[in-house]
Structures are given as C-alpha cells and as structure tokens.
C-alpha cells in the first residue's frame, strides 16, 4: 500500500516546529516504517477484540481521600518562568 503522509499536518498536530527539510526526511522514514507495517494490516482480525491492557484488570480505583500536595516553591523552582505563585507563559490565545 503506498503511504501518503501529510507530514506538515502531522507535525502541527504534534506541536513540532520542524524545518521543511526535516519534514521531508521524516516523511520518507515514516513511509518505510509504515510499509513494513503493511504486514500488520494484512492480518485478518475480523471479530478480534483489541487489547488495550495486557493483564485485563478492571476497576482499579482509589478512595476519595485527600493526600498532601507538593510544595509550591519546589515545583515552581523547575519552571522556566514563574511569578507570584503562577507559571508564566507567552500569551495563550488559541483554544483547542
């Protein structure tokens, strides 16, 4: 199956600001890997349930109990920019 990848769109979805040359390299490499994956697509999986969890466990919950939170100063010490208890970023305008 020939693989047609809109690599710029994929990079945008993944929030990766890549150069045109890099995009082209990745587009080619992804094509090779996905052609290899054609063997997976060729398998008959009609009626087969997907496996999302290897052990098939269910209902792992925690009780509604409060546990201690982290120390804010320790957390903010790792932030590239913080002020008055907030993380600070350039203006975030586009929702979604």
């Amino acid at each position, binding site marked *: 199956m020939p693989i047609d990848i809109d690599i710029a769109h994929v990079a945008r979805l993944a929030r990766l600001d890549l150069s045109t040359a890099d995009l082209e390299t990745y587009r080619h*490499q992804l094509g090779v890997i996905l052609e290899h994956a054609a063997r997976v697509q060729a398998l008959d999986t009609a009626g087969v349930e997907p496996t999302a969890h290897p052990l098939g466990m269910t209902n792992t919950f925690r009780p509604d109990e409060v546990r201690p939170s982290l120390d804010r100063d320790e957390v903010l010490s790792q932030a590239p920019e913080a002020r008055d208890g907030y993380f600070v970023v350039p203006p975030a305008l586009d929702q979604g």
Partner: protein
Amino acid sequence: MSYADLTIAAAASELRAGTITATELLEAVFERASLTEAELHAYLTLDAARARTAAGQADVRFAAGTPLGPLDGIPIALKDNMCTRGVETTCASQILAGYHPPYDATVVSRLKAGGAVITGKTNLDEFAMGSSTENSAYGPTRNPWNPERVPGGSSGGSAAAVAVGSALAALGSDTGGSIRQPASLCGVVGVKPTYGLVSRYGLIAFGSSLDQIGPFTRTVEDAATVLGVIAGHDPLDATSWRGDYPDAGSMFETGVAGMRIGVIRQLDGEGYEPEVTAMSRAMLDRLTDAGAEIVEVSIPTCDVALSTYYLIAPAEASANLARFDGIRYGLRADGSTAEEMMARTRAEGFGPEVTRRILLGTYALSAGYYDAFYGQAQKVRTLVKQEFAAAYEKVDALVSPTSPTVAFELEAKTADPLSMYLSDVCNIPANLAGHPAMTVPLGLDSQGLPVGFQVMAPALGEATMFRVAAEVERQAGFVARPAMTGVES
C-alpha cells in the same frame, strides 16, 4: 579482588558478617566507576554525596544488627528515566536538562526503604527510544567488552554499569527489549517482569501499556533478590497487579528435569548470526541433557510483532511526550505565543528518534488512519496473546536467542531506523503479551562479545522462568569479566 566484583548475595552476607562495610563496598564501586567511566559513559549522574550518606546509614544499621533486607547497603544504579527527588532526571533528553523532580518514583522509594544505596543515574537512548544508547543527547555509552561497539539499548548505561561493577545491580525499563537486549549485549542478567508486577509510578512513560521496570544483575539469584524488593502492589499505579505475587526464587535448585521447554520457530533463521544460533542450540542440548524436553512451537504473529509494536508504542509515546511543552519544567524556547513557544521547544528539545516516533504515533492515531494502524495493531496484539496462551498449553516456558546479533559497531545502524528496530525482534512479543522474559549470558563469541539466551514464561510465571534461567546459568558457567575492569578471568 575488588568488592565491586561481588554478587549481591555475597556482598549481603559479608555485610552481615561485618567483614566489609557498606561504605567500603560503595567506595569500591566508585573506584571501578572512576576506572571505567571515561571510556564507558554508563552514568549521566553519579550521586556520590547522597550515596555516601546512605551507605553510612546502612553501616549504622549493620552495626546495630538491624539491616533492612537483602539490598541493605547494596550499591544500585537507576536508569535516568526514573524520577529521583532532587536528583537530576533527564531521560537523556535536552528537553529535561536540569530537571530535578519533586518526587521519587515508587521503585526508588522501595529501594530506599530496603536500604539500597543509589549510586546515580545511568545513560539511555533518549526517552528509552532506541537499541544502542546512541540516541542519548549526552553522548553514547560504550560496550564494556569492546568500546568500539554499542552496549545495546535503551538501558545501555545500566547494563554496562553492572557488567563492569560500577554498580552491583541496576534498574532499567523494557518497553520492547530495552532491558534484555542490552543485558545480552553486555553479558549480564536482565529481567522484564510480568507487566504490572513493578510499579510504573515515577517511570517517565514511553509506551504505557508495554513499559515495565526490571533489574540488571550479574547472577540470576541476584535478579530475583532485586525483583523481590521492587515488585509489589502500588496504589499509585492503576495497572499495578493486585493479586498474589510470584516468588521468583522459589525453584532455583529444582532443575529442569521433566519440564517442557518450547523453542519459537519464528525466532531463528535469516538475520541471526550463526554463532548466536549455534550457542543457543548448544544450550538447548544441555537443557535436554538436564532432563528437559525441548519442543519446537510456532507463534506466527512473532513475524508481525515488531511492526505491531512500532504502531502501538509510538502512538502511546506521542501522547506521553505531549506534556514536554516548556511550561512547567525543562527546556523552553522563545515564542511570541504559547503555541509557538511549545512547538519550538519540542522541535529543539527532542532528538531525531524521539521526533520520528512522535510523528509516527501521531499519524497512527490521526483521523482516518486510526483503524488501519493503531486499531488494527491492538487487535493483532490480541492474536499475539492468544498464540502465546496456546503455546503455554503445551510448554512450561519458551526460549530463544535474546538478540539476533552480538553488539554491533557504533553508528552501524543509526542511518537506518528499521535495521535498528530489528535488534529487538526477539524481545517484543513478551511486551505485547505482557509476559515475563529474561536474558541469561551464555558466554562469549569468537570476537569476545557476549551472547544471551532468552527465557519466557506465562504471565506471573516468574518462578518457572527463573527455574529455567538458573539452570541455563549453571550450564553456561559464564564468569568472564570485561577487560576494562582489570579483573583477571
């Protein structure tokens, strides 16, 4: 002989006897590191000050006759994708340069509670993506047996450190062979436990449904000891096993007489180095001599496991690595908007292999392609599980070479991602199935490079797996040490 060459079992008994102290043991390990690190680069961070404090505290306990357990005072290294409070944790990525987590991973808490002395953080392929440790943003680790060669990966630093004795044990993580393959290439024991036995809380996620932490040690017995300390239910990990835990070391001395051991037909043939195949077959003969019945089994999906894995793991990784956005920790690039800043940070901070897999995973999940790629891969995963389940109806354990090749030269495969991925072809089925698998060294090939032998068992079948592994270890009798350790063998 240096104390750095002691097994955990031997060191623990000497510590209890008072013939050595934890501090002496640690200094011997650091001395070994100072001898080897310049060439090897197994460590990203050697945490000498904290380690010395921990060793001193262990010595107080030994003096008082109140050691905490089998790992008290034992120097252990951690792959640098496990969070250590206040100790830099980078995942070998620029994007996490200088990051000091505000919390300990559960395995770290368990090791500390058991008195282990954490020596530092070992090198890896960036975000555990790779099979050679060449994808580290901080430079590659070299193979202790031949520095022109790779140590395997992604946990190459942990494997190399244990091989040379700059730690008595190390933890790694195995998403698609990242413990077993480097252990094999470095000539040590490496274990990927059943998915869920060891908490992933605090392990920086790669492929969440595949990732599992496990030990590197020089002996099978030591591996069981470390596993015994790090395994256990963790309420902070919803995928942590809630039932009874297997006692890995319960059948070391039982031998394999009467066992049925399956050889996977698909994990042989083209692409397998002749010496690897020959040494594996020789071990099968020895196991037969030891009373096991060797049965050939067919698991056809092993042929597509690699491709299946390269759809599932990158998809999960694309989401797991979305959080590295320059806001709360790590690297930040300039940008006039938050979105621009994020996209630039990520492009600058991630190396090529990580970028490639994020793109691959994003594509495999995107609208119009989900069913063909990720959805189909999850179904094939079910087929893999079914075929393994059928095989385990007939046999107690499965075996194969751990890696089709011995350690390859640096840069031999970096230009061709697919050839690099093929290094893990024997390892990936166990990750897809969630089953335990481990590698035991068979010996050295004619080039003096280690060859490993993989033993697999059904989920929670660690006792069976270690029973076979212990026999393989006895039969192989591998005791050689890399020349760079200066140990005469």
